[in-house]
């Protein structure tokens, strides 16, 4: 037992019961500082938005909304339409997600459930994260020299079997939308996996116990309780991945074929807004710059719209459960 200290003396040992003014000042200063830092981010976004908006004004006056629905890209006659790039951006990123979400979510479930020993799960998780560390130019090279030749037979088969649909009616020859989609899958997979894994790990164990307590199976618990309670965080991760896929430039430029002709087929060369900007900005002048700015504006608006849509979906989902 410690010797008894008189209460008065004990109270004296707490010297910070009254906060000195200097400390309050520091508090206030810290608040202002974080406010400044937060506004810098917001201002940066606004700045970029208005620069792009201003730059695209000329093209908007000339081409109007026709820009979205025409596919001629003709610097000689100064006629521009971004349909090829818009179609390519939307289709490549959405299809990449369609493949990557089940794959990433499945991996995340697998490495958060105790189906295999912990060390093995950690190894798989680490490997997926390392995938994110590969520079995109390396992935692009890999796509050109390794992946595309390797999947060519599969694409040929698709062409033979499904050639009657407009989406597979061209003979695959080298770069094209399909390999670009696959390389996007590789690039967004680590984001989806890592964020879903963290989201699933955040689900309180009590919830899982509750689910088992009413007699669910493991799969019942995962699909009816654990996934729904992680759904907003997972959707956030998917949106991040979609943003990455829509804006990804290097690897996609290297493998997509940069075609300026509109073609529905996934097996033919295509283009995306980001890859078109990267290819043309250097040599562009006059109204072509403005047209590229216009395309960039569309990309920003698309990303924004997708985000708003996702928020709406999350809200709908969380209401249902």
């Amino acid at each position, binding site marked *: 037992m410690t010797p008894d200290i008189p209460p008065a003396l004990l109270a004296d040992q707490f010297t910070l019961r009254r906060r000195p003014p200097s400390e309050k000042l520091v508090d206030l200063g810290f608040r202002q500082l974080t406010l400044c830092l937060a506004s810098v981010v917001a201002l940066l976004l606004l700045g970029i938005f208005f620069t792009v908006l201003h730059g695209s004004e000329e093209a908007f006056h000339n081409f109007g909304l026709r820009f979205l629905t025409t596919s001629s890209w003709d610097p000689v006659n100064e006629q521009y339409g971004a349909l090829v790039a818009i179609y390519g951006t939307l289709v490549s990123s959405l299809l990449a997600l369609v493949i990557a979400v089940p794959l990433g979510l499945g991996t995340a479930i697998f490495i958060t459930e105790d189906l295999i020993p912990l060390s093995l799960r950690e190894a798989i998780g680490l490997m997926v994260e390392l995938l994110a560390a590969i520079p995109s130019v390396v992935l692009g090279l890999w796509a050109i020299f390794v992946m595309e030749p390797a999947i060519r037979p599969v694409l040929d088969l698709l062409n033979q079997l499904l050639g009657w649909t407009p989406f597979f009616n061209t003979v695959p020859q080298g770069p094209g939308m399909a390999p670009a989609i696959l390389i996007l899958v590789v690039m967004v997979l680590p984001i989806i996996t890592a964020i879903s894994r963290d989201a699933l790990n955040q689900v309180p164990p009590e919830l899982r*116990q*509750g689910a088992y307590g*009413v*007699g*669910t199976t493991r799969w019942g618990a995962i699909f009816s309780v654990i996934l729904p*309670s992680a759904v907003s965080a997972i959707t956030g991760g998917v949106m991040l991945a979609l943003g990455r896929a829509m804006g990804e430039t290097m690897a996609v430029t290297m493998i997509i074929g940069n075609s300026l002709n509109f073609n529905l087929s996934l097996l033919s060369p295509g283009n995306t807004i980001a890859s078109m900007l990267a290819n043309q900005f250097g040599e562009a002048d006059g109204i072509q710059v403005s047209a590229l700015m216009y395309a960039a504006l569309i990309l920003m608006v698309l990303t924004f719209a997708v985000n708003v849509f996702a928020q709406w979906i999350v809200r709908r989902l969380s209401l249902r459960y």
Partner: protein
Amino acid sequence: MTTSLQEQMSSRTAQAGTCMSLQDVTISYGKFEAVKNVFMDIPCGKVTAFIGPSGCGKSTVLRALNRMNDLIPGCGLKGRVVFDGYDLYDKRIDPVEVRRRIGMVFQKPNPFPKTIYENIAFGARINGYKGDMDELVERSLRKAAVWDECKDKLKQSGLALSGGQQQRLCIARAIATEPEVILMDEPCSALDPISTLKIEETMHELKRSYTIIIVTHNMQQAVRVSDMTAFFNAEAVEGGTGKVGYLVEYNDTEQIFNAPGQKATQDYVSGRFG
């Protein structure tokens, strides 16, 4: 476990025989033995209370009764837990089926992130309920003394309730699946006296058809609701890493509180513990 066995089971419930029998049960977390050598016969159609100081292994034993400890990595059990003529820890027993027949209310409220209605309907559906779901939801919420607070927001999230309301929702969720045995881990620790009394009334009503096992720190509650009481205690052992829990005394509640056989029990129930 087949339906015919289930029928046998319910006929046995009426005879008030032994519902669950713990035979030399020792439960350990990794190398640490949390509770040792528990022998206990829990009667059918009665309320059995587990009492004892914090950390003596009441929750651990309770969770062992519907294989909830399976979820804790490294948790192992030696001995036998016999229910309905089977050892629950036999290799051939499906833990999912065990939990459908032995429901549970947890120490911390854990409603699903679904609507209040779905919280109840979910478990019922899993157990293959074919009747009127609206009616079941209302009946369960009423039994758990939370209907009045919930009836206007059945379509809202269960998480939007207060802590005590959430706990009663979880009790309703457990009742709704109509298990044969209900395990309750301090179900009333977050409740006000009025709701507590309502829950206790529900227990009295439920024990006509079910067996209830409840962990409680509230001596009056144990006296009010239980027919049998088990007093657990923990003591440090030589060479052990922590205190090991064990069953001190198990008897009729009246006996435990009025004429306990052990001095430790006497000290605990009269508040002279520690």
